[in-house]
Protein backbone atom coordinates (compact mmCIF):
# COMPACT_ATOMS: atom_id res chain seq x y z
CA UNK A 1 0.00 0.00 0.00
CA UNK A 2 1.24 3.48 -0.79
CA UNK A 3 1.71 5.85 2.16
CA UNK A 4 0.18 9.20 1.26
CA UNK A 5 0.72 11.09 4.50
CA UNK A 6 3.38 10.77 7.15
CA UNK A 7 5.33 12.78 9.64
CA UNK A 8 8.36 14.47 8.04
CA UNK A 9 11.65 12.96 9.25
CA UNK A 10 12.84 16.44 10.29
CA UNK A 11 9.87 16.84 12.66
CA UNK A 12 10.26 15.07 15.98
CA UNK A 13 7.47 12.78 17.14
CA UNK A 14 6.58 14.82 20.23
CA UNK A 15 3.41 16.72 21.16
CA UNK A 16 3.73 20.49 20.64
CA UNK A 17 2.85 23.16 23.18
CA UNK A 18 0.87 25.20 20.67
CA UNK A 19 -2.80 25.97 21.22
CA UNK A 20 -5.21 24.06 19.02
CA UNK A 21 -5.66 25.78 15.70
CA UNK A 22 -2.38 27.70 16.02
CA UNK A 23 -0.64 28.48 12.73
CA UNK A 24 2.84 27.87 14.15
CA UNK A 25 2.37 24.10 14.16
CA UNK A 26 1.23 24.08 10.52
CA UNK A 27 4.24 26.14 9.44
CA UNK A 28 6.66 24.03 11.50
CA UNK A 29 5.45 20.99 9.66
CA UNK A 30 5.66 22.64 6.24
CA UNK A 31 9.22 23.79 6.89
CA UNK A 32 10.18 20.23 7.81
CA UNK A 33 8.41 18.74 4.78
CA UNK A 34 10.37 21.03 2.47
CA UNK A 35 13.67 20.36 4.25
CA UNK A 36 13.07 16.64 3.79
CA UNK A 37 12.11 17.11 0.16
CA UNK A 38 15.28 19.12 -0.52
CA UNK A 39 17.32 16.56 1.44
CA UNK A 40 19.04 19.26 3.50
CA UNK A 41 18.27 18.26 7.13
CA UNK A 42 21.96 17.85 7.92
CA UNK A 43 22.83 21.17 6.27
CA UNK A 44 20.20 23.31 7.94
CA UNK A 45 20.84 25.68 10.85
CA UNK A 46 17.74 27.43 12.19
CA UNK A 47 17.39 30.40 14.51
CA UNK A 48 14.31 30.32 16.74
CA UNK A 49 12.72 33.54 18.00
CA UNK A 50 11.59 34.81 21.35
CA UNK A 51 7.84 34.34 21.01
CA UNK A 52 5.47 31.38 21.00
CA UNK A 53 7.92 29.52 18.73
CA UNK A 54 10.81 29.91 21.16
CA UNK A 55 11.17 26.17 21.65
CA UNK A 56 10.84 25.23 17.99
CA UNK A 57 14.13 23.40 18.55
CA UNK A 58 12.17 20.85 20.61
CA UNK A 59 10.30 19.94 17.43
CA UNK A 60 12.89 20.39 14.71
CA UNK A 61 15.42 17.64 14.35
CA UNK A 62 18.31 19.77 13.08
CA UNK A 63 20.82 22.30 14.48
CA UNK A 64 19.14 25.32 16.07
CA UNK A 65 20.06 28.44 17.98
CA UNK A 66 18.05 30.72 20.16
CA UNK A 67 18.33 34.50 19.72
CA UNK A 68 17.49 37.48 21.91
CA UNK A 69 14.10 39.02 21.03
CA UNK A 70 14.32 40.65 17.60
CA UNK A 71 18.00 39.94 17.05
CA UNK A 72 17.11 36.73 15.24
CA UNK A 73 18.38 37.78 11.79
CA UNK A 74 21.69 38.94 13.31
CA UNK A 75 22.29 35.52 14.83
CA UNK A 76 21.32 33.91 11.52
CA UNK A 77 23.69 36.23 9.66
CA UNK A 78 26.57 35.42 12.01
CA UNK A 79 26.02 31.71 11.45
CA UNK A 80 25.63 32.03 7.68
CA UNK A 81 28.78 34.12 7.28
CA UNK A 82 30.74 31.44 9.13
CA UNK A 83 29.07 28.59 7.20
CA UNK A 84 28.14 29.97 3.76
CA UNK A 85 27.56 26.42 2.53
CA UNK A 86 24.83 25.70 5.08
CA UNK A 87 21.16 26.60 4.73
CA UNK A 88 20.33 29.12 7.45
CA UNK A 89 16.91 30.47 8.28
CA UNK A 90 15.36 32.58 11.00
CA UNK A 91 11.79 32.04 12.13
CA UNK A 92 10.19 35.17 13.58
CA UNK A 93 6.91 36.49 14.91
CA UNK A 94 5.54 39.94 14.17
CA UNK A 95 6.61 41.34 17.52
CA UNK A 96 10.08 39.95 16.94
CA UNK A 97 10.42 41.11 13.34
CA UNK A 98 8.21 44.20 13.07
CA UNK A 99 8.69 45.82 16.51
CA UNK A 100 11.77 45.10 18.59
CA UNK A 101 13.76 43.76 15.63
CA UNK A 102 12.77 46.27 12.94
CA UNK A 103 16.25 47.69 12.53
CA UNK A 104 17.84 44.26 12.40
CA UNK A 105 15.54 42.85 9.71
CA UNK A 106 15.86 45.96 7.53
CA UNK A 107 19.64 45.95 7.63
CA UNK A 108 19.89 42.19 7.17
CA UNK A 109 17.78 42.50 4.04
CA UNK A 110 19.66 45.59 2.91
CA UNK A 111 23.00 43.84 3.14
CA UNK A 112 21.43 41.13 1.00
CA UNK A 113 22.37 38.45 3.50
CA UNK A 114 21.87 35.10 1.87
CA UNK A 115 19.51 33.78 4.51
CA UNK A 116 15.80 32.95 4.58
CA UNK A 117 13.25 34.40 6.97
CA UNK A 118 9.92 32.79 7.87
CA UNK A 119 7.80 35.60 9.25
CA UNK A 120 4.73 34.52 11.21
CA UNK A 121 2.23 37.37 11.15
CA UNK A 122 -0.55 36.60 13.63
CA UNK A 123 -1.28 40.24 14.46
CA UNK A 124 -0.62 39.87 18.20
CA UNK A 125 2.04 39.07 20.74
CA UNK A 126 1.00 35.49 21.39
CA UNK A 127 3.54 34.57 23.97
CA UNK A 128 3.00 37.50 26.32
CA UNK A 129 -0.83 37.33 26.42
CA UNK A 130 -2.07 38.87 23.23
CA UNK A 131 -0.93 42.48 23.24
CA UNK A 132 -1.15 44.71 20.18
CA UNK A 133 1.54 44.12 17.56
CA UNK A 134 2.66 46.52 14.81
CA UNK A 135 0.59 44.28 12.50
CA UNK A 136 -2.62 44.40 14.56
CA UNK A 137 -5.53 45.46 12.32
CA UNK A 138 -7.27 48.81 12.79
CA UNK A 139 -10.08 48.31 15.28
CA UNK A 140 -8.74 44.93 16.48
CA UNK A 141 -9.14 44.35 20.19
CA UNK A 142 -6.08 43.16 22.05
CA UNK A 143 -4.99 43.26 25.67
CA UNK A 144 -3.33 46.65 25.11
CA UNK A 145 -6.05 48.00 22.79
CA UNK A 146 -9.22 46.90 24.56
CA UNK A 147 -11.36 49.31 22.54
CA UNK A 148 -9.70 48.31 19.30
CA UNK A 149 -6.55 49.61 17.61
CA UNK A 150 -6.95 53.33 17.16
CA UNK A 151 -4.82 54.91 14.46
CA UNK A 152 -4.64 58.24 16.26
CA UNK A 153 -3.13 56.53 19.28
CA UNK A 154 -1.48 53.41 17.88
CA UNK A 155 -0.61 54.12 14.27
CA UNK A 156 -1.25 51.81 11.33
CA UNK A 157 -0.70 48.10 10.67
CA UNK A 158 2.83 47.81 9.32
CA UNK A 159 3.36 46.06 6.01
CA UNK A 160 6.83 44.76 6.57
CA UNK A 161 7.04 42.70 3.39
CA UNK A 162 6.19 45.69 1.19
CA UNK A 163 8.64 47.83 3.15
CA UNK A 164 11.44 45.30 2.79
CA UNK A 165 10.73 44.79 -0.89
CA UNK A 166 12.01 48.34 -1.50
CA UNK A 167 15.52 47.18 -0.65
CA UNK A 168 17.70 45.96 -3.53
CA UNK A 169 19.27 43.36 -1.22
CA UNK A 170 15.94 41.54 -0.86
CA UNK A 171 15.48 39.05 -3.69
CA UNK A 172 12.34 37.08 -2.98
CA UNK A 173 9.42 38.09 -0.77
CA UNK A 174 5.99 36.50 -0.78
CA UNK A 175 2.99 36.74 1.52
CA UNK A 176 0.98 33.57 2.01
CA UNK A 177 -1.44 32.21 4.57
CA UNK A 178 -2.39 28.93 6.18
CA UNK A 179 -6.16 29.45 6.48
CA UNK A 180 -7.25 26.73 4.05
CA UNK A 181 -5.73 23.67 2.31
CA UNK A 182 -5.10 25.49 -0.97
CA UNK A 183 -3.25 28.27 0.83
CA UNK A 184 -1.31 25.76 2.92
CA UNK A 185 -0.01 24.24 -0.32
CA UNK A 186 0.94 27.70 -1.59
CA UNK A 187 2.78 28.33 1.67
CA UNK A 188 4.67 25.08 1.23
CA UNK A 189 5.67 26.13 -2.30
CA UNK A 190 6.80 29.56 -1.09
CA UNK A 191 8.92 28.01 1.68
CA UNK A 192 10.57 25.80 -0.88
CA UNK A 193 11.16 28.67 -3.27
CA UNK A 194 12.70 30.79 -0.52
CA UNK A 195 15.11 28.07 0.59
CA UNK A 196 16.07 27.40 -3.01
CA UNK A 197 16.69 31.12 -3.51
CA UNK A 198 19.25 30.87 -0.71
CA UNK A 199 20.73 27.59 -1.96
CA UNK A 200 21.25 29.16 -5.37
CA UNK A 201 23.09 32.02 -3.66
CA UNK A 202 20.66 34.71 -4.85
CA UNK A 203 20.34 36.57 -1.56
CA UNK A 204 17.80 37.53 1.06
CA UNK A 205 14.44 35.74 0.93
CA UNK A 206 11.41 36.13 3.20
CA UNK A 207 8.04 34.41 3.39
CA UNK A 208 5.39 36.20 5.43
CA UNK A 209 2.72 33.82 6.63
CA UNK A 210 -0.66 35.08 7.88
CA UNK A 211 -1.22 32.72 10.71
CA UNK A 212 -4.14 32.18 13.10
CA UNK A 213 -3.88 32.79 16.83
CA UNK A 214 -7.31 31.60 17.91
CA UNK A 215 -6.44 32.10 21.58
CA UNK A 216 -5.80 35.83 21.42
CA UNK A 217 -8.22 36.55 18.64
CA UNK A 218 -10.92 35.10 20.89
CA UNK A 219 -12.17 32.87 18.07
CA UNK A 220 -12.56 29.17 17.40
CA UNK A 221 -9.86 27.70 15.13
CA UNK A 222 -12.34 27.62 12.27
CA UNK A 223 -13.47 31.23 12.75
CA UNK A 224 -9.85 32.30 13.10
CA UNK A 225 -9.15 30.91 9.63
CA UNK A 226 -12.22 32.67 8.31
CA UNK A 227 -10.96 35.94 9.79
CA UNK A 228 -7.74 35.62 7.81
CA UNK A 229 -9.71 35.40 4.59
CA UNK A 230 -12.30 38.04 5.48
CA UNK A 231 -10.18 40.66 7.24
CA UNK A 232 -6.49 40.01 7.53
CA UNK A 233 -5.75 39.28 3.89
CA UNK A 234 -7.59 42.48 2.94
CA UNK A 235 -5.08 44.53 4.92
CA UNK A 236 -2.17 42.23 4.01
CA UNK A 237 -2.78 41.10 0.40
CA UNK A 238 -1.47 37.66 -0.47
CA UNK A 239 0.93 37.02 -3.33
CA UNK A 240 4.47 37.46 -4.55
CA UNK A 241 5.70 40.89 -3.51
CA UNK A 242 9.15 40.63 -5.00
CA UNK A 243 10.91 38.07 -7.15
CA UNK A 244 14.09 39.57 -8.49
Amino acid sequence: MKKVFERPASLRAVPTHYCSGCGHSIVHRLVCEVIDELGIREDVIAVCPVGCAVIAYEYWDFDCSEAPHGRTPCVATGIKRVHPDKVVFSYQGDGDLAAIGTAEIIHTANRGENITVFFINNGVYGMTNGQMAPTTLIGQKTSTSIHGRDITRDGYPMKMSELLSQLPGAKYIERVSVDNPANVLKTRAAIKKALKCQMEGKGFSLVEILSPCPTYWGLSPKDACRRIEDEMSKAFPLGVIKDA
Partner: protein
Amino acid sequence: MAKILMCGNEVIGEAAVHAGCTFYAGYPITPQNELTHYMSFRMQEAGGTFIQAESELAAINLVLGASAAGARAMTSSSSPGISLKQEGISYMAACQLPAVIVNMMRGGPGLGNIAPSQADYFQATRGGGHGDYRTMVLAPSTVEEAWNLTQLAFDLADEYRNPVMILGDGILGQMMEPVEVVRRHLNGRNAVSSHKPWALTGCKGRKPNVVRSLFLGEGELEELNRIMQMKYNKIKSKEPRFESLYTEDSDLVVVAYGTTSRIVRSAISKARHEHLHVGMFRPVTLWPFPEAQLQKLARKSKAFLVVEMSAGQMLDDVKLSILGQRPIHFHGRAGGGVPTEEAIIEAIKDILKPKSRKRVYA
Protein backbone atom coordinates in the same frame (compact mmCIF):
# COMPACT_ATOMS: atom_id res chain seq x y z
CA MET B 1 61.81 40.61 15.18
CA ALA B 2 61.62 44.34 14.58
CA LYS B 3 59.24 46.44 16.60
CA ILE B 4 56.72 48.65 14.86
CA LEU B 5 54.68 51.60 16.08
CA MET B 6 51.00 50.86 16.47
CA CYS B 7 48.16 52.24 18.58
CA GLY B 8 46.43 50.06 21.13
CA ASN B 9 43.23 49.75 19.10
CA GLU B 10 45.08 48.51 16.01
CA VAL B 11 47.24 46.14 17.98
CA ILE B 12 44.17 44.52 19.49
CA GLY B 13 42.87 43.99 15.95
CA GLU B 14 46.09 42.43 14.73
CA ALA B 15 46.37 40.29 17.86
CA ALA B 16 42.84 39.02 17.23
CA VAL B 17 43.80 37.99 13.70
CA HIS B 18 46.87 36.31 15.11
CA ALA B 19 44.70 34.42 17.59
CA GLY B 20 42.54 33.08 14.76
CA CYS B 21 39.62 35.49 15.01
CA THR B 22 37.68 35.24 11.75
CA PHE B 23 34.65 37.34 12.57
CA TYR B 24 34.38 40.95 13.65
CA ALA B 25 31.29 43.14 13.89
CA GLY B 26 31.26 46.68 15.24
CA TYR B 27 29.58 50.06 15.21
CA PRO B 28 31.54 53.33 15.22
CA ILE B 29 32.17 55.08 18.52
CA THR B 30 35.12 57.11 19.80
CA PRO B 31 37.68 56.27 21.23
CA GLN B 32 37.77 52.78 19.69
CA ASN B 33 37.25 53.64 16.00
CA GLU B 34 40.79 52.67 14.95
CA LEU B 35 39.93 49.07 15.80
CA THR B 36 36.81 49.05 13.62
CA HIS B 37 38.75 50.75 10.80
CA TYR B 38 41.53 48.21 11.10
CA MET B 39 39.27 45.19 11.11
CA SER B 40 37.33 46.47 8.09
CA PHE B 41 40.27 45.69 5.83
CA ARG B 42 42.25 43.26 7.90
CA MET B 43 39.43 40.70 8.27
CA GLN B 44 39.03 40.74 4.52
CA GLU B 45 42.77 40.27 3.96
CA ALA B 46 42.89 37.46 6.47
CA GLY B 47 39.97 35.60 4.96
CA GLY B 48 37.49 36.44 7.70
CA THR B 49 34.27 38.44 7.93
CA PHE B 50 33.82 42.11 8.80
CA ILE B 51 30.35 43.56 9.28
CA GLN B 52 29.68 47.20 10.07
CA ALA B 53 26.54 46.61 12.06
CA GLU B 54 23.54 48.94 12.29
CA SER B 55 23.94 49.14 16.07
CA GLU B 56 25.82 47.62 18.97
CA LEU B 57 22.78 45.41 19.56
CA ALA B 58 23.21 43.98 16.10
CA ALA B 59 27.00 43.72 16.44
CA ILE B 60 26.94 41.63 19.60
CA ASN B 61 24.27 39.34 18.16
CA LEU B 62 26.17 38.89 14.91
CA VAL B 63 29.04 37.80 17.13
CA LEU B 64 26.68 35.53 19.05
CA GLY B 65 25.73 33.81 15.79
CA ALA B 66 29.32 33.49 14.58
CA SER B 67 30.37 32.09 17.92
CA ALA B 68 27.48 29.61 17.95
CA ALA B 69 28.70 28.53 14.52
CA GLY B 70 32.12 27.78 16.00
CA ALA B 71 34.20 30.78 14.89
CA ARG B 72 36.46 32.90 17.05
CA ALA B 73 34.59 36.19 17.05
CA MET B 74 35.10 39.70 18.39
CA THR B 75 33.29 42.99 18.77
CA SER B 76 34.45 46.30 20.21
CA SER B 77 32.93 49.51 21.41
CA SER B 78 33.16 52.20 24.05
CA SER B 79 30.99 52.79 27.11
CA PRO B 80 27.55 53.77 25.67
CA GLY B 81 27.84 51.02 23.07
CA ILE B 82 28.89 48.47 25.66
CA SER B 83 25.72 49.26 27.59
CA LEU B 84 23.75 48.25 24.50
CA LYS B 85 25.70 45.01 24.18
CA GLN B 86 24.80 43.83 27.68
CA GLU B 87 21.70 41.91 26.58
CA GLY B 88 23.77 39.89 24.14
CA ILE B 89 26.59 39.31 26.62
CA SER B 90 24.11 37.89 29.14
CA TYR B 91 22.70 35.56 26.47
CA MET B 92 26.19 34.43 25.46
CA ALA B 93 27.18 33.71 29.04
CA ALA B 94 23.98 31.69 29.45
CA CYS B 95 24.45 29.85 26.14
CA GLN B 96 28.09 29.27 27.17
CA LEU B 97 29.43 30.90 24.03
CA PRO B 98 32.97 32.29 23.79
CA ALA B 99 33.67 35.76 22.39
CA VAL B 100 36.01 38.67 22.95
CA ILE B 101 34.47 42.06 23.66
CA VAL B 102 36.63 45.18 23.77
CA ASN B 103 35.57 48.24 25.77
CA MET B 104 37.73 51.33 25.35
CA MET B 105 36.06 53.27 28.13
CA ARG B 106 35.13 56.94 27.91
CA GLY B 107 33.74 59.40 30.42
CA GLY B 108 30.18 58.81 31.57
CA PRO B 109 27.43 58.44 32.58
CA GLY B 110 25.14 59.07 29.61
CA LEU B 111 26.78 60.28 26.45
CA GLY B 112 29.50 61.65 28.73
CA ASN B 113 32.58 62.69 26.81
CA ILE B 114 35.35 61.04 24.84
CA ALA B 115 38.05 61.48 27.46
CA PRO B 116 39.63 58.37 29.01
CA SER B 117 37.83 56.81 31.94
CA GLN B 118 37.61 53.70 34.09
CA ALA B 119 34.02 54.17 35.14
CA ASP B 120 32.70 50.95 33.56
CA TYR B 121 34.53 48.76 36.08
CA PHE B 122 31.33 47.80 37.92
CA GLN B 123 29.55 47.02 34.65
CA ALA B 124 32.45 44.91 33.40
CA THR B 125 33.22 42.95 36.55
CA ARG B 126 29.75 42.49 38.06
CA GLY B 127 28.08 40.98 35.02
CA GLY B 128 26.66 44.10 33.34
CA GLY B 129 23.54 42.44 31.98
CA HIS B 130 20.81 40.47 33.72
CA GLY B 131 21.27 37.22 35.58
CA ASP B 132 23.97 35.48 37.60
CA TYR B 133 26.95 35.55 35.28
CA ARG B 134 30.43 37.00 34.99
CA THR B 135 32.73 37.91 32.16
CA MET B 136 36.47 37.60 32.56
CA VAL B 137 38.01 41.07 32.32
CA LEU B 138 41.59 41.69 31.16
CA ALA B 139 43.07 45.15 31.61
CA PRO B 140 46.21 45.88 29.58
CA SER B 141 48.32 48.87 30.58
CA THR B 142 50.56 49.09 27.52
CA VAL B 143 50.17 48.48 23.81
CA GLU B 144 52.48 45.49 24.09
CA GLU B 145 50.41 44.00 26.86
CA ALA B 146 47.30 44.56 24.72
CA TRP B 147 48.94 42.36 22.06
CA ASN B 148 49.46 39.53 24.55
CA LEU B 149 46.23 39.82 26.49
CA THR B 150 44.06 39.90 23.37
CA GLN B 151 45.42 36.54 22.30
CA LEU B 152 45.01 35.20 25.81
CA ALA B 153 41.41 36.46 25.80
CA PHE B 154 40.51 34.20 22.85
CA ASP B 155 42.09 31.18 24.54
CA LEU B 156 40.32 31.84 27.83
CA ALA B 157 36.99 32.44 26.08
CA ASP B 158 37.22 29.09 24.31
CA GLU B 159 38.51 27.23 27.33
CA TYR B 160 35.73 28.39 29.62
CA ARG B 161 33.08 28.93 26.94
CA ASN B 162 32.35 32.39 28.27
CA PRO B 163 32.68 35.95 26.95
CA VAL B 164 35.93 37.70 27.86
CA MET B 165 36.28 41.47 27.96
CA ILE B 166 39.33 43.57 27.22
CA LEU B 167 38.93 46.72 29.30
CA GLY B 168 40.99 49.71 28.25
CA ASP B 169 40.43 53.42 27.86
CA GLY B 170 40.85 56.12 25.28
CA ILE B 171 44.52 56.65 26.11
CA LEU B 172 45.49 53.00 25.68
CA GLY B 173 43.39 52.71 22.51
CA GLN B 174 44.85 55.73 20.79
CA MET B 175 48.40 55.87 22.11
CA MET B 176 51.12 54.55 19.81
CA GLU B 177 53.91 52.41 21.24
CA PRO B 178 56.50 50.09 19.74
CA VAL B 179 55.37 46.49 19.67
CA GLU B 180 56.58 43.24 18.16
CA VAL B 181 53.81 42.10 15.86
CA VAL B 182 53.70 38.86 13.92
CA ARG B 183 51.36 39.15 10.95
CA ARG B 184 49.57 35.98 10.07
CA HIS B 185 47.38 34.98 7.20
CA LEU B 186 44.46 32.81 8.07
CA ASN B 187 42.08 30.90 5.96
CA GLY B 188 38.87 31.86 7.68
CA ARG B 189 37.10 28.63 6.95
CA ASN B 190 39.73 26.48 8.64
CA ALA B 191 39.45 28.43 11.83
CA VAL B 192 36.16 26.81 12.86
CA SER B 193 37.76 24.50 15.29
CA SER B 194 36.98 20.83 15.50
CA HIS B 195 37.27 20.94 19.27
CA LYS B 196 33.92 22.68 19.58
CA PRO B 197 31.55 19.70 19.49
CA TRP B 198 28.71 21.98 20.62
CA ALA B 199 28.98 24.33 17.61
CA LEU B 200 26.24 24.62 15.00
CA THR B 201 27.71 23.16 11.83
CA GLY B 202 24.79 21.13 10.46
CA CYS B 203 23.96 17.81 12.13
CA LYS B 204 25.74 15.49 9.69
CA GLY B 205 26.73 12.29 11.50
CA ARG B 206 25.61 13.49 14.92
CA LYS B 207 22.55 14.46 16.93
CA PRO B 208 21.39 18.06 16.37
CA ASN B 209 23.04 20.72 18.51
CA VAL B 210 21.00 23.42 20.17
CA VAL B 211 22.33 26.73 21.48
CA ARG B 212 19.86 27.98 24.08
CA SER B 213 19.42 29.88 27.30
CA LEU B 214 15.73 29.18 27.94
CA PHE B 215 15.17 26.43 30.50
CA LEU B 216 11.58 26.10 31.66
CA GLY B 217 11.66 22.61 33.14
CA GLU B 218 11.61 22.21 36.91
CA GLY B 219 15.15 22.76 38.24
CA GLU B 220 16.76 23.00 34.77
CA LEU B 221 17.79 26.63 35.01
CA GLU B 222 19.04 26.15 38.53
CA GLU B 223 21.22 23.32 37.22
CA LEU B 224 22.62 25.56 34.45
CA ASN B 225 23.44 28.16 37.07
CA ARG B 226 25.12 25.56 39.25
CA ILE B 227 27.33 24.54 36.32
CA MET B 228 28.12 28.17 35.54
CA GLN B 229 29.05 28.92 39.14
CA MET B 230 31.35 25.89 39.22
CA LYS B 231 33.04 27.27 36.14
CA TYR B 232 33.33 30.73 37.71
CA ASN B 233 34.83 29.27 40.87
CA LYS B 234 37.42 27.46 38.78
CA ILE B 235 38.24 30.74 37.01
CA LYS B 236 38.53 32.50 40.37
CA SER B 237 41.05 30.00 41.63
CA LYS B 238 43.06 29.53 38.42
CA GLU B 239 43.05 32.76 36.49
CA PRO B 240 43.82 35.82 38.65
CA ARG B 241 46.72 37.75 37.14
CA PHE B 242 48.57 40.75 38.56
CA GLU B 243 51.84 42.61 38.71
CA SER B 244 53.46 43.89 41.88
CA LEU B 245 56.17 46.50 42.19
CA TYR B 246 58.26 47.08 45.33
CA THR B 247 55.55 45.48 47.43
CA GLU B 248 58.05 43.52 49.59
CA ASP B 249 59.24 46.59 51.47
CA SER B 250 56.34 48.99 51.18
CA ASP B 251 54.46 50.67 53.98
CA LEU B 252 51.94 51.85 51.44
CA VAL B 253 50.68 49.91 48.42
CA VAL B 254 49.01 51.84 45.62
CA VAL B 255 46.45 49.76 43.72
CA ALA B 256 45.80 50.80 40.11
CA TYR B 257 45.13 49.17 36.74
CA GLY B 258 45.39 50.02 33.05
CA THR B 259 46.44 53.52 32.06
CA THR B 260 46.23 54.78 35.64
CA SER B 261 48.86 52.26 36.71
CA ARG B 262 51.33 53.93 34.34
CA ILE B 263 50.91 57.27 36.06
CA VAL B 264 51.15 55.56 39.44
CA ARG B 265 54.32 53.79 38.31
CA SER B 266 56.15 57.03 37.60
CA ALA B 267 54.74 58.68 40.75
CA ILE B 268 56.12 55.79 42.77
CA SER B 269 59.58 55.94 41.27
CA LYS B 270 59.74 59.63 42.18
CA ALA B 271 58.40 58.97 45.68
CA ARG B 272 61.01 56.26 46.23
CA HIS B 273 63.72 58.77 45.33
CA GLU B 274 62.42 60.69 48.29
CA HIS B 275 62.80 57.49 50.38
CA LEU B 276 59.11 56.84 50.71
CA HIS B 277 58.37 53.14 51.09
CA VAL B 278 55.66 52.83 48.53
CA GLY B 279 54.85 50.10 46.01
CA MET B 280 52.20 49.22 43.49
CA PHE B 281 49.82 46.34 43.01
CA ARG B 282 48.34 46.17 39.51
CA PRO B 283 45.49 43.75 38.81
CA VAL B 284 45.73 42.46 35.24
CA THR B 285 42.53 40.47 35.54
CA LEU B 286 39.82 42.65 37.07
CA TRP B 287 37.54 39.65 37.23
CA PRO B 288 38.70 37.38 38.66
CA PHE B 289 40.15 40.04 40.97
CA PRO B 290 43.50 38.90 42.48
CA GLU B 291 41.94 39.02 45.91
CA ALA B 292 44.12 36.52 47.78
CA GLN B 293 47.31 38.03 46.34
CA LEU B 294 46.32 41.51 47.44
CA GLN B 295 45.18 40.29 50.83
CA LYS B 296 48.65 38.84 51.48
CA LEU B 297 50.11 42.34 51.23
CA ALA B 298 47.96 43.46 54.15
CA ARG B 299 50.31 41.50 56.45
CA LYS B 300 53.28 43.75 55.67
CA SER B 301 51.89 47.01 54.40
CA LYS B 302 50.33 49.55 56.71
CA ALA B 303 47.93 51.15 54.27
CA PHE B 304 46.54 51.04 50.74
CA LEU B 305 45.75 53.76 48.26
CA VAL B 306 43.45 53.07 45.32
CA VAL B 307 43.83 55.34 42.28
CA GLU B 308 41.25 55.20 39.50
CA MET B 309 39.75 57.26 36.71
CA SER B 310 36.36 56.89 38.38
CA ALA B 311 34.57 57.89 41.55
CA GLY B 312 35.77 54.68 43.18
CA GLN B 313 34.77 51.35 41.66
CA MET B 314 37.74 48.97 41.93
CA LEU B 315 37.91 50.45 45.41
CA ASP B 316 35.11 48.04 46.38
CA ASP B 317 37.15 45.00 45.34
CA VAL B 318 40.16 46.27 47.26
CA LYS B 319 37.95 46.67 50.35
CA LEU B 320 36.59 43.16 49.84
CA SER B 321 40.16 41.83 49.66
CA ILE B 322 41.60 43.72 52.65
CA LEU B 323 38.48 43.14 54.76
CA GLY B 324 39.10 46.02 57.11
CA GLN B 325 42.60 44.89 58.12
CA ARG B 326 44.25 48.12 56.97
CA PRO B 327 43.07 51.64 56.11
CA ILE B 328 42.25 52.13 52.44
CA HIS B 329 42.54 55.58 50.87
CA PHE B 330 41.21 56.68 47.53
CA HIS B 331 42.22 59.17 44.87
CA GLY B 332 40.07 59.29 41.77
CA ARG B 333 38.92 61.55 38.96
CA ALA B 334 35.50 60.96 37.43
CA GLY B 335 34.00 62.24 34.17
CA GLY B 336 37.10 61.91 32.02
CA GLY B 337 39.60 63.47 34.43
CA VAL B 338 43.06 61.87 34.60
CA PRO B 339 44.91 61.70 37.94
CA THR B 340 48.22 63.56 37.74
CA GLU B 341 51.56 62.30 38.96
CA GLU B 342 51.77 65.27 41.34
CA ALA B 343 48.38 64.59 42.88
CA ILE B 344 49.29 60.94 43.42
CA ILE B 345 52.62 61.85 45.07
CA GLU B 346 50.73 64.32 47.24
CA ALA B 347 48.26 61.63 48.26
CA ILE B 348 51.14 59.24 49.04
CA LYS B 349 52.80 61.86 51.24
CA ASP B 350 49.53 62.68 52.98
CA ILE B 351 49.25 59.05 54.01
CA LEU B 352 52.88 58.33 54.89
CA LYS B 353 53.81 61.65 56.50
CA PRO B 354 50.56 63.16 57.70
CA LYS B 355 52.12 65.29 60.49
CA SER B 356 54.87 66.93 58.50
CA ARG B 357 52.28 67.94 55.96
CA LYS B 358 50.03 70.06 58.15
CA ARG B 359 48.77 72.88 56.05
CA VAL B 360 49.63 76.38 57.21
CA TYR B 361 46.97 78.94 56.55
CA ALA B 362 48.03 82.54 56.44
